């Protein structure tokens, strides 16, 4: 029987910040979302003070008298992304069966190891990742992915066990499942949890022992897979090759409301250029673009979304071509005097680059575009993001979101490398 280990980085964003600033150790640290909006990562010390995940920063600041006792940081995705790549490359050294599930989580296939060797390997993973990257991780081991998620959650709460928990070797397995609310089971969303609770299924144990026919009828094949996974029968295989994404989105809130059409165009152009850079890095083309603008504030009902869906004759990842498309979309959507708070683009209909359908009515020199973008991407890869950019993105970019507390991009920008001094 094969085993699955879930490796989960502890308080990942905070841990990344602590690697380069050890003074943050033992202090309550929170990391804020884009535009310094909400709390998206907390150190254990911050959790102990009752700061909730997703809590708006203005509320936290009010509760904690301006937040001077806290270390508050803007999110630094360049750093987190790079640290994640380092952690994942360490994990890849342990097994080729690696599924990168998110920026801070990965499933590992452990083949047919006995309990003793499984735990030893898990402890070695924890120690190696910490030694080589500085990031603390915990490891949950079980027969299936759903059980491994439960084991991983348990491992985080057991620092005395070295951040490792093997569910199969646990003597109190039934009690553990009975203590997990059904809504905390991986794959059970809020609506499904409410439905299950109305049937009296309120724990992971009760879901495991639920009637097969009833689950199949009410929750379909997805629900039945969940139940089988809880019983230790693997239905969700490891996805070692990440599937092609269905879409790529790039959107940001503005630092202050934008009313000027030129600034709005700049912002949408910059987001589009970024999304297309990601698209080209994955060697994909997009068959359609959606441009959206959000105005209004307050409750979701008071916000207004304006959207334009733009199908392309030929699937493309060409920034010059799509900048023109986005410009037409923004011009069509723009309302004079409106205070825009957020904008974004979504690229849809993704397909492998260079395999798409050509068009009879196409007059664009795509080979010239390809040569230009290869040069731009090459320069930005070598010299840093934004070294070369399209004029449509603007130079001053006064609309950029707030990130007043962002730490340097320690590992991805030459100018921001940490400096060590010896006296």
């Amino acid at each position, binding site marked *: 029987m094969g085993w699955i280990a879930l490796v989960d980085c502890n308080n990942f964003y905070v841990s990344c910040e602590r690697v380069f600033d050890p003074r943050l150790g033992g202090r309550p640290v929170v990391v804020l979302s884009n535009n310094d909006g909400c709390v998206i990562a907390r150190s254990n010390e911050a959790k102990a003070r009752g700061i909730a995940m997703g809590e708006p920063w203005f509320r936290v600041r009010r509760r904690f008298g301006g937040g001077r006792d806290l270390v508050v940081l803007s999110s630094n995705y360049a750093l987190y992304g790079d640290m994640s790549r380092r952690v994942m490359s360490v994990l890849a050294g342990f097994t080729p069966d690696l599924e990168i599930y998110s920026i801070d989580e990965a499933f590992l296939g452990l083949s047919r190891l006995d309990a003793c060797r499984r735990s030893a390997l898990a402890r070695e993973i924890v120690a190696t990742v910490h030694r080589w990257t500085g990031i603390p991780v915990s490891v949950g081991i079980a027969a299936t992915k759903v059980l491994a998620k439960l084991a991983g959650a348990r491992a985080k709460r057991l620092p005395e066990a070295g951040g490792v928990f093997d569910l199969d070797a646990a003597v109190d397995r039934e009690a553990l499942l009975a203590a997990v609310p059904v809504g905390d089971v991986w794959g059970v969303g809020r609506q499904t949890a409410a439905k299950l609770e109305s049937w009296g299924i309120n724990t992971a144990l009760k879901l495991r022992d639920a009637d097969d026919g009833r689950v199949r009828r009410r929750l379909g094949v997805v629900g039945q897979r969940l139940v089988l996974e809880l019983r230790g029968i693997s239905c969700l295989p490891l996805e070692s090759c990440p599937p092609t994404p269905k879409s790529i989105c790039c959107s940001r809130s503005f630092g202050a409301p934008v009313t000027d059409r030129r600034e709005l165009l700049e912002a949408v152009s910059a987001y589009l250029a970024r999304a297309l850079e990601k698209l080209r890095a994955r060697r994909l083309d997009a068959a359609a673009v959606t441009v959206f603008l959000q105005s209004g504030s307050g409750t979701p009902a008071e916000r207004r979304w304006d959207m334009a869906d733009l*199908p392309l004759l030929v699937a493309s990842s060409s920034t010059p071509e799509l900048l023109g498309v986005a410009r037409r979309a923004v011009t069509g959507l723009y309302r004079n005097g409106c205070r825009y708070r957020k904008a974004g683009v979504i690229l849809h209909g993704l397909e492998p680059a260079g*395999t798409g*359908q*050509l*068009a*009879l*009515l196409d007059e664009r020199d795509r080979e010239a575009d390809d040569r230009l973008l290869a040069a731009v991407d090459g320069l930005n890869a070598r010299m840093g993001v934004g070294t070369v950019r399209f004029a449509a993105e603007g130079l001053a970019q006064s609309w950029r979101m707030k990130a007043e507390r962002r730490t340097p991009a320690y590992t991805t920008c030459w100018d921001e490398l940490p400096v060590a001094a010896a006296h």
Partner: protein
Amino acid sequence: MEVIIRRDVLTNNLQRMQYMLEKTSVLQHSQNILMQVEADQAQITAYDVDCSARATFPVSTGRNGTVCINGKKFFEIVRSLGDEQVTVRQDEERNLVTIRGSKSSFNILCAEPEDFPEVNFTSPEDHFFIQADMLKQLIDRTVFSIAKVPDPRYNLEGVFIEVTPAGTETAAVTASAVAHGAENDGGGVTHLVTFVATDGHRVSIARTDKIGGRINLGERRIFSRKSLMEIKNIFSDSETLKISFSASDVHVRGETFVLLLRMLKGNFPDYRKMIPQHFSHEIVMERESLLQILRRMNVLAYDKYKGITMDFADRRVTVSIDNPEMGSAREDMEVDYTAEPFTVAFNIRYLLDFMQVVGGERIVMKVTGGMQPCMLSEEGSENFINGIMPMKG
């Protein structure tokens, strides 16, 4: 109004109108049929955004009048009666229509006939005649290329129809034209009617010179898929149809029915520029063999992996498909090609759409490398050609 009608006649006429009646009502009367009776003749009319239809047939009149009734229910009731004749009677006071057989009687609520839109079915003078089966073939050979997504520059969501002079031969449906009491154009000039549809990736061009009548040249119109499909639903293959154009519509008149199709607005691209005049390779292939190969390859094709590769070399073409999530397949076929080997990739759906409607034993593929448009046609005829852009790679 009170009339006695042969049930098979009424059923047949109502049935042909059923596709036109909207299931979900867009317009107030798009689910209704207007029935007018006068002097031993009944007319039933259906109305929709894209088209309208009217059928005329004999009745045994008791009393003239007009009723407006739900078309689907009217049809279902008449069809369900087992009698040879049905009686349709209007009860004006109670706003009801009674449909009666020998044993059954239905009272159906009806709408105000005055509210039914007025449609002018008077055909303009300029017209041409064409056999219904030929017209249906032109539709079948083009509708599959209609664009499914809008193009900001052109209106590609319909079939473009054009009438032009072709040569010096006389029109071929003269006999039918005479049967309709029509005049020939007098000059003995053959005219071509051309149907064109494109989605920007492929273009289907179907034409015929088997038309006759008083033709006003230069008619260039776009009509929606839905309205053209009504021609297929309403007219039987053996009918001779009189086609005439007004400023905004085309009138199609058959033996019982007249159908009015509304023109779509917008520009259609110049289809003549879509297909090159010269190609570097010309390959003749057995149609049925290639169709069977494509059908087999299509088993592995789906939305994301729809490309097939055709490798031409040394009197053979190797057709292959590679679906990274499923597997791959390949098959060889003998072809009449001996020049330099070359490879070209196509969307398999585009080839199948053409191959399923083209006639003849052999087809001709004209191509210039893997990045230029390819032209497909039946060997020995260019009355139906399909221009397809290859896929990249």
